[in-house]
């Protein structure tokens, strides 16, 4: 019985969430959308809090118990973060904020020097003549020249005129061509998300397509009715 309630609840509420959120496509405000949106935000906040706190209890607390005194300081610094909620203790919360900003920026940047800069130079140093087919020569030459042209588009402190202006324009055009390519690639990626979602919907593992369809019909009809006949009620039912 409890298990039934569980499956049916997930089916119905899941459908309400899914189609409530799809309703934004219609461009019409609907209480179902508002419900789905707020329920999603609420549970999402809750989930983050639970898993983060669980990490503290599962990993950090045993280490403190195990006699790692330096972790006690970490926990104290973490707790100091909570002082941010009051104006009088706000300055104390700046210590952990400074620490996490400085460490976060530091560990990110030091590795980026290699992965983002040095290794990229290495990958751009391509043999233009010598070895390889004519096609290789053409593509290597294109890569090198495109890199040069696009870079000129990203110079901000030099006045763009003369030959630099031509290079800048070519760079900009290459960039737009690249945007077209990337749009198409991204489109395909997003399409994967839609077909993935539709697959789950059309071939549900926990099936009752009829229930889903009934729920959707109810949602569509109520929204339509509210819109046509009871605009005041609709206003009352949606948040400001």
């Amino acid at each position, binding site marked *: 019985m409890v298990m039934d309630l569980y499956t049916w609840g997930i089916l119905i509420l899941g459908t309400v969430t899914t189609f409530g959120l799809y309703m934004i*496509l*219609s*461009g019409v405000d609907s209480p179902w959308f508002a419900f789905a949106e707020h329920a999603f935000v609420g549970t999402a906040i809750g*989930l*983050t809090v639970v*898993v*983060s706190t*669980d*990490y503290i209890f*599962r*990993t*950090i607390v*045993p*280490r403190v118990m195990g006699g*790692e005194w330096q972790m006690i300081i970490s926990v104290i610094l973490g707790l100091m973060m909570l002082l941010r909620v009051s104006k009088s203790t706000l300055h104390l919360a700046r210590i952990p904020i400074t620490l*996490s900003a400085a*460490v*976060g920026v530091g*560990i*990110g940047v030091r*590795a*980026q020097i*290699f*992965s983002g800069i040095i*290794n*990229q130079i*290495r*990958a751009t140093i391509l043999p233009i003549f010598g070895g390889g087919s004519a096609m290789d020569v053409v593509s290597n030459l294109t890569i090198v020249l495109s890199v040069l042209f696009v870079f000129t588009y990203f110079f901000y402190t030099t006045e763009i005129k003369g030959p630099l202006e031509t290079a800048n324009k070519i760079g900009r055009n290459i960039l737009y061509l690249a945007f077209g390519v*990337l749009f*198409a*690639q*991204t*489109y*395909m*990626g*997003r*399409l*994967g*998300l*839609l*077909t*993935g*979602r*539709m*697959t*789950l919907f*059309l*071939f549900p593992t926990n099936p009752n397509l009829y229930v889903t369809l009934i729920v959707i019909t109810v949602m569509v009809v109520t929204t339509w009715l509210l819109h046509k006949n009871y605009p005041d009620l609709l206003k009352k039912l949606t948040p400001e």
Partner: protein
Amino acid sequence: MSFKILWNIDRRIYYGLLFIIVSILLLNPVGMPLKISPEVKNTWQMIDDLQPGDFVIINFCLSASGYAQLQGACNSMITHIFEKPGVTVLFMMVSDQAPIMLEEIITINGDLMPGKTTFPWYEIRGKTYGEDYINMGFYPGISNFIAALSMNFRKSLGNTDWYGEDVTDFFESHNIQSAEDVDMVVSFDSDDGAGDFMRYFFLEYGTPVIQSMIGVMVANSKVQYDAGNYAGIVPSIRGSAEYQFLQNYPGMALTQMDAFSAVQFYLMALMIVGNLGYHFYGKKQQEKV
């Protein structure tokens, strides 16, 4: 006059048609041919070359949305790794929605161990929980955590798994002490989890990193793959379909490819319609204004 209609199509008509096309082709797949790209073949080979005694981290930086797309890659790659004899596996997540999705993957591909009724006690392709694989669950702070993991491997992970079981024996019996003992990292990403593994594991210890990522990340990951930062990539749904094909794993990724082709032609058709509308009607209207 007819071009006026083309210029003023309501976007809801676009949406409705798209919905219908996808539904029809998913329900009645045609079965179009598929070419295997070299990078997926290469990645498949790398996983196939895993030796007994190798230790693999499988990381999820995947939200529920990305799972809908990478389902095929998750299932086929994970079973491939689990089919290699003597390989030990550690699951970890840096996305808070991932634990519940991993449980689904395990239920699909594994069976409960005899005498057990709950998670984590599942057997997948002959590997048993606690001996051949463990699930360490979620850790906060994506890049910061992975950095900490590379420096202080055992302590960052802790001794209890996601379900509160003590897993000290697992690490000791397989002699896993530091990040240098990791032989491969596989990351399923809808955020840049593999990028962090690449920066802190590959650049530090040379650990090969394989990424399977959602569509929007493909362009960036390809650049990293070409620069030699990633050892392998399985890009989005197409990569998933190819991997499923190589692995002979039955699944939806292959059937989704039909809907793919059709919708891309649909977009091209819309582009033509939009251009006709613009050049024969909209342009004049805009010039008038």
